[in-house]
């Protein structure tokens, strides 16, 4: 029993040290001065917005796209994947009036989902760079310029990744926690990995990429539900880097109900399980900088949740009188350190973002006991759905996140 416990605790050690290291590296990176490089020539950029039934949000998104200020040529393509609502009529209001805006009806095809739509978008455009925004995004006017400048001035960069902020963070406890989770991911994980290993990962939206690189690797994998993570692995395997640009901000909405959240995150979990399976078969994903992503993937989507489950079991057993007095490892202190590292990351992100209000700090303190526990359910839901699809030999289809009207 003690041997098993010691093995598990060794993994605990590894995780705790790794995340603590990332926390400090992330803060250091955020505090370091970044050079802003103005370019003589700004390359052409195509903004691709995959859309399906986005009538509720698309007007605000297109207004934000028109407000983008970019010194070079910039075109916005709304890639409509057979919407049934008023997405097309709203989009046409813009395309008939503004030369920058283009409406593209994506032909029907299989498998349905964001990856196929983006591949179609790539096939009909010819800009030097392309930039992905989700259909509910409202970027800051200088976001594209900042991303292009950073991509051009970073050695070996095949693009750049911006920051995603939550527009409906204050709606309820769930959106507040999602906003905090995003802050931790971007300000601690992303920046920490950039500082420590000079590697960044794509975030699904607000990401700039070099067309030639993506075309050379065959575009998006149409079967990947977590297409951003999958693409990150392939471009990192080729030796390219993805710098993180904190000034390049976009605002997007997050699920406001638990039902929508669970649906969205189960899809993400399925996408990540697909990627884990692909990683096992692909040797290139375990070399050089890609190793960082692969290990991070295993740690976040497998080990962290697995250890969280163990920690919960120990806690419940402890509450029922099984005190683990004979254990040769300090279980209580391990549990405390897990909580500490998790919470410090949240508080550090809040301090860096200047969002450390008393209510946000309180939410940060209880997230380990509430929000983090959802990942245990998500892992089980994901594994169950994955095994089911494998047994029935079905292709897991893309499931769009339901939008809500957010007044700005």
């Amino acid at each position, binding site marked *: 029993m003690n041997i098993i416990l010691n093995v598990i605790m060794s993994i605990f050690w590894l995780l705790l040290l790794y995340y603590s290291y990332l926390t400090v590296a992330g803060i250091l990176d955020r505090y370091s001065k970044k050079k802003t490089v103005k370019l003589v020539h700004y390359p052409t950029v195509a903004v691709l917005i995959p859309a399906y039934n986005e009538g509720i949000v698309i007007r605000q998104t297109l207004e934000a796209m028109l407000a983008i200020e970019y010194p070079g040529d910039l075109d916005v393509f709304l890639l409509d994947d057979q919407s049934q609502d008023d997405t097309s009529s709203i989009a046409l209001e813009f395309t008939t009036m503004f030369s920058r805006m283009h409406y593209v009806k994506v032909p029907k095809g299989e498998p349905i989902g964001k990856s196929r739509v983006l591949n179609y978008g790539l096939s009909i455009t010819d800009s030097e760079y392309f930039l992905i925004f989700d259909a509910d995004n409202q970027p800051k006017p200088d976001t594209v310029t900042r991303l292009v400048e950073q991509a051009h001035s970073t050695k070996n960069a095949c693009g750049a990744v911006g920051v995603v902020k939550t527009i409906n963070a204050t709606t309820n406890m769930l959106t507040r926690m999602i906003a905090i989770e995003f802050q931790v991911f971007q300000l601690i994980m992303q920046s920490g990995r950039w500082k420590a290993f000079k590697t960044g990962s794509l975030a699904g939206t607000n990401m700039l990429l070099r067309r030639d690189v993506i075309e050379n690797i065959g575009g998006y994998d149409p079967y990947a539900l977590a297409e951003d993570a999958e693409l990150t692995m392939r471009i990192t395997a080729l030796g390219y880097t993805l710098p993180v640009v904190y000034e390049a901000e976009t605002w997007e909405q997050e699920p406001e109900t638990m039902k929508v959240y669970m649906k969205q995150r189960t899809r993400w979990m399925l996408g990540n399980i697909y990627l884990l399976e692909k990683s096992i078969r692909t040797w290139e994903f375990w070399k050089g900088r890609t190793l960082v992503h692969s290990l991070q993937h295993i740690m976040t989507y497998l080990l962290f949740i697995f250890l969280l489950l163990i920690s919960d079991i120990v806690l419940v057993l402890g509450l029922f009188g099984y005190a683990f*007095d004979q254990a040769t490892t300090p279980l209580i*202190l391990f549990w*405390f*350190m897990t909580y500490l*590292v998790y919470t*410090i990351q949240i508080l550090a992100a809040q301090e860096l973002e200047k969002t450390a209000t008393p209510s946000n700090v309180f939410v940060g303190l209880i997230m380990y006991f509430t929000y983090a526990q959802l990942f245990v359910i998500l892992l089980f839901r994901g594994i169950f759905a994955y095994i089911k699809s494998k047994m029935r030999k079905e292709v897991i289809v893309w499931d769009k996140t339901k939008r809500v009207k957010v007044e700005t």
Partner: protein
Amino acid sequence: MKRYAFSLLLLLSLLATVLIIYQLEFDLNSSPLPFILLPILLLMTWMSGRINFLILVTYTLGLGFVYLVLSWYNAATNEQQLFYIAQHLLSSFGVFLYWLFLRQLRSIFENNKELQERVKLLEGFSESPQLLSYSEFLDRTDFLIAGAKRREEKNILFHIQIPATKFNKKSIMQQLTNAGLKVFRAHFDVMSQRNRQEFIIFLQNTDSTGANIAWSRYEKELRNRFTTVDFPFEFSQLHVNSSVEETLDQQERVHK
């Protein structure tokens, strides 16, 4: 006032935490806390806000690992582990409060410095509140010169310089200012101190004749204030074409 109360509250909480830690330390001689905590607090006193935040995070995480290793090495019982956790929480909370206190203090100092600079800028170096600061004087005269150019009018600048050798420069400047404020129309003609030795008066829409009349009125007022036959300053009357600064620079080049 709210910030003052908050700072005071922080200081009191900090003292209370230190006392509790001190109390705890008496019971546990083997604790590494006193050797770690004191240098950390001393270091934070001299470091910038950003470095202090990094110290706070590193200290909190680092101390956790120290206790983890200690309890693993000593095969700590559940009670000992809980005691370590209590110690960690208390000392981290103490460092956190100290960081918050320093941050609060620093923000008050920075705010104060910023306000002082703004006041200095608004007052210029003028000790007379009715007088324009030099930057304001330049802004105002630029505007007047532009208008005069359009209307093809002339402007004159009275430049009064107190020699560097004079001992009572401050009093001389005071008399020049008070006399100027009495004689000239403050809303029409503008006056300022360029530095502690130079006093300037800008007369808009006037020629040499008008300027001579103005000077004789000013001179008469100055005669009442100074007893010496020769004034303790040098006076020059300058035509302003493009800007006051340029006119004064030209004057300086001529003198050199």
